């Protein structure tokens, strides 16, 4: 069997049903083989390789399966780098197969040659250059194993053209033999017991949960533990949906744009239990003042996350779901609680903070408020849509106002902060969930980073609605310049935007626009009811900022709740200096 066929057969053994990719010379043998396997394995032709990786990430995060990317050598491979770095930061399982020039040309500056193993080394969990066709099946097997186990991540397989042409016997390895790779499973039982005892005894505990709980499918165990111990829960941006936002124990997101209750809760807690979260700087603010009174328990599948930013009292290396289940078991077996601890004083304080300072914004009649778009979207989709976002103000407004119910419902670029992630990720999620509504909330800046994927969405007939929070600005950058650079607006004005409605039409999609508040609901309704790709251009208040906010480098207690009152209830957009 030739290498190309071995690759396809191996992918099928790994249960791959969809590949996101873009062909080219060095990968042509494989594309030829793929054409003969059309009935068994699908392919989504993207318009830029970055889009392929983000689409695969959307597929992977929304399903829990490994996302698969296939591209050609040189520029095809280098265009994947942003997506790979993004997947690494957000612990998303991806296998990316890159074509490579034939082995005898490697190192010769051949046409479309790049040192892909070298370039992608720092932005992958692992990578391979396959030099012998006899290694191929084993490498594919290992790559999927590495991508999906432990802390998930992207794996690159760089595949020279002659290897895909060479023939050998296809032998699918039954097991992976990686003696040096030992992903964490269960946590140390003694430490688990210690952590549970601390949770039972704490007066002011907080459970701080991140994307690791989503990755480990630990949401059910998390809810059971929070209820059994009556723990307040605050999810990170990546952890939204791991715990239902409407749950009475949910304080909302913490961190830079988190809730007052969550940030004050963490700041006053006597015990902080972090599960599948990594003390990211956007969460902690000034590190030395993060949870200053708390003893800390940290559960993470990645040993290097423990004691990385915060020195902890109990560090448990293990899979989030396994450890949460161990905690529940330990609670049932050893602790014999007479019902959940009431912690009345703590809850009274937390509820006070919640009602004192909920998320709020100025509602205006003359202009659409971006937060109102998200609230309306939540109402119309009943909070059930898979929502992707790009990066910027709109991302934070979705995080604040959508109200996620389930894990794998919210896909965004939390770690790398990649503008251009949201739209292709929505295409990937829609391919995986053809029956479900998928909405990409993006900004006028972000959407243009991968806007060419409109062609992909139309060709694939995916049911994706793109909501553009259009404020004619790189809004988050403008917000920082407003707050920290004395309103010196440097290169943040998108003075020339495409007409997104016409552009959608040019791509054979539907485009709709809302410019005044009265149009918001009908336009969203119409857009959601229209099948296929629909671009909804929401012309919103230009100078609205995301609040509350913890200024970069400040402590969570120093959060700014509302914009400084400058006396103008209805500020006119300022000149773009």
């Amino acid at each position: 069997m030739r290498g190309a066929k071995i690759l396809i057969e191996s992918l099928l053994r790994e249960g791959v049903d969809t590949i996101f990719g873009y062909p080219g010379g060095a990968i042509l043998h494989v594309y030829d083989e793929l054409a003969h396997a059309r009935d068994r394995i699908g392919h989504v032709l993207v318009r830029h390789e970055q889009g392929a990786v983000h689409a695969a990430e959307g597929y992977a995060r929304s399903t829990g399966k490994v996302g698969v990317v296939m591209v050609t050598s040189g520029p095809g491979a280098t265009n994947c780098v942003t997506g790979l770095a993004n997947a690494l930061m957000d612990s998303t399982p991806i296998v990316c197969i890159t074509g490579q020039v034939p082995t005898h040309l490697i190192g010769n500056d051949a046409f479309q040659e790049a040192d892909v193993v070298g370039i992608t080394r720092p932005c992958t969990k692992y990578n391979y250059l396959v030099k012998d066709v006899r290694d191929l099946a084993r490498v594919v097997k290992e790559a999927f194993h590495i991508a999906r186990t432990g802390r998930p991540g992207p794996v690159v397989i760089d595949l020279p053209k002659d290897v895909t042409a060479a023939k050998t016997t296809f032998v699918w390895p039954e097991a992976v033999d990686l003696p040096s790779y030992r992903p964490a499973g269960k946590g140390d039982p003694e430490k688990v017991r210690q952590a549970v005892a601390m949770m039972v005894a704490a007066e002011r505990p907080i459970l701080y949960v991140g994307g690791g709980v989503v990755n480990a499918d630990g949401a059910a165990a998390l809810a059971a533990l929070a209820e059994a111990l009556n723990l307040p829960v605050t999810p990170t941006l990546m952890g939204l949906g791991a715990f239902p936002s409407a749950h009475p124990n949910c304080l909302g997101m913490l961190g830079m744009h988190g809730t007052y209750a969550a940030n004050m809760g963490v700041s006053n807690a006597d015990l902080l239990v972090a599960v599948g979260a990594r003390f990211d700087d956007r969460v902690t603010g000034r590190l030395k003042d993060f949870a200053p009174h708390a003893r800390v328990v940290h559960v993470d599948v990645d040993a290097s996350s423990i004691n990385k930013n915060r020195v902890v009292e109990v560090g448990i290396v293990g899979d989030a779901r396994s450890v949460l289940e161990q905690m529940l078991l330990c609670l049932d077996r050893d602790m014999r609680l007479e019902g959940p601890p009431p912690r009345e004083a703590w809850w009274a304080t937390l509820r006070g903070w919640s009602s004192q300072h909920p998320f709020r914004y100025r509602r205006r009649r003359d202009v659409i408020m971006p937060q109102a778009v998200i609230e309306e979207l939540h109402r119309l989709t009943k909070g059930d849509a898979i929502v992707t976002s790009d990066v910027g103000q709109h991302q934070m407004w979705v995080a604040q106002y959508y109200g996620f119910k389930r894990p794998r419902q919210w896909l965004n670029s939390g770690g790398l902060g990649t503008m251009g992630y949201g739209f292709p990720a929505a295409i990937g999620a829609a391919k995986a969930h053809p029956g479900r509504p998928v909405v990409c909330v993006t900004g006028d800046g972000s959407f243009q980073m991968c806007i060419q994927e409109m062609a992909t969405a139309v060709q694939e007939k995916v049911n994706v609605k793109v909501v553009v929070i259009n404020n004619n600005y790189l809004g988050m950058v403008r917000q920082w310049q407003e707050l920290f650079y004395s309103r010196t607006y440097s290169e943040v004005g998108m003075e020339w935007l495409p007409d997104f409605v016409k552009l959608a039409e040019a791509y054979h999609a539907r485009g709709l626009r809302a410019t005044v508040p009265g149009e918001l609901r009908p336009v969203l309704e119409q857009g959601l009811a229209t099948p296929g790709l629909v671009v909804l251009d929401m012309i919103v208040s230009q100078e609205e900022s995301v609040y509350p906010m913890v200024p970069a480098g400040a402590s969570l207690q120093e959060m700014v709740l509302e914009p400084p009152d400058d006396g103008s209830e209805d500020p006119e957009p300022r000149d773009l200096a």
Partner: protein
Amino acid sequence: MNGEGGARHILSILVENRFGELCRIVGLFSGRGYNIDSLCVAPTPDPAFSRIILTTNGNDAIMEQIIKQVGKLVRVLEVADLNEVDHVEREMALLIVKTRNPAERQEVLNLVGVFRAKVIDIAPDAITVETTGSQDKVDALLGLLKPLGIQDIVRTGAVAIPRISAARGRDETRGPELVVPEADSAV
């Protein structure tokens, strides 16, 4: 964040002997802003594995991160901080010293003798010396030869191995440890 005030640490890393793995380890240091002071790599008796001896510096927190990050790499079997165990350490240096007259030559030969170093090449106006020892010992010899004029130096960086007693885990039941005298403990 190159460990201000941090001590020098010797790491012993066992890794699968494949192309690219050394790069991955070295890249991890550069990517995170840690410095490598010296690096020695060679296959182990089992050629499927290589042993890397690497010296770096950092405070406890940085060292914990370095060890965890390196240990997390897919093909790394083992990372040990040899500072944690009793160990022996050697470095080799080759140096060419100028000797403009017989007195200087004699001076070099005397020092070579005291340090149990070796003369491996000699010319009318220069001597090539091989010396082996701890970093301090090599530094000491260099310091003494420097006034004579050193033409060239190459150093290997440290290699190190746990002491036999440390490798046995100081198990009392094994009876008294043999005290192995250091062969060249001069200076």
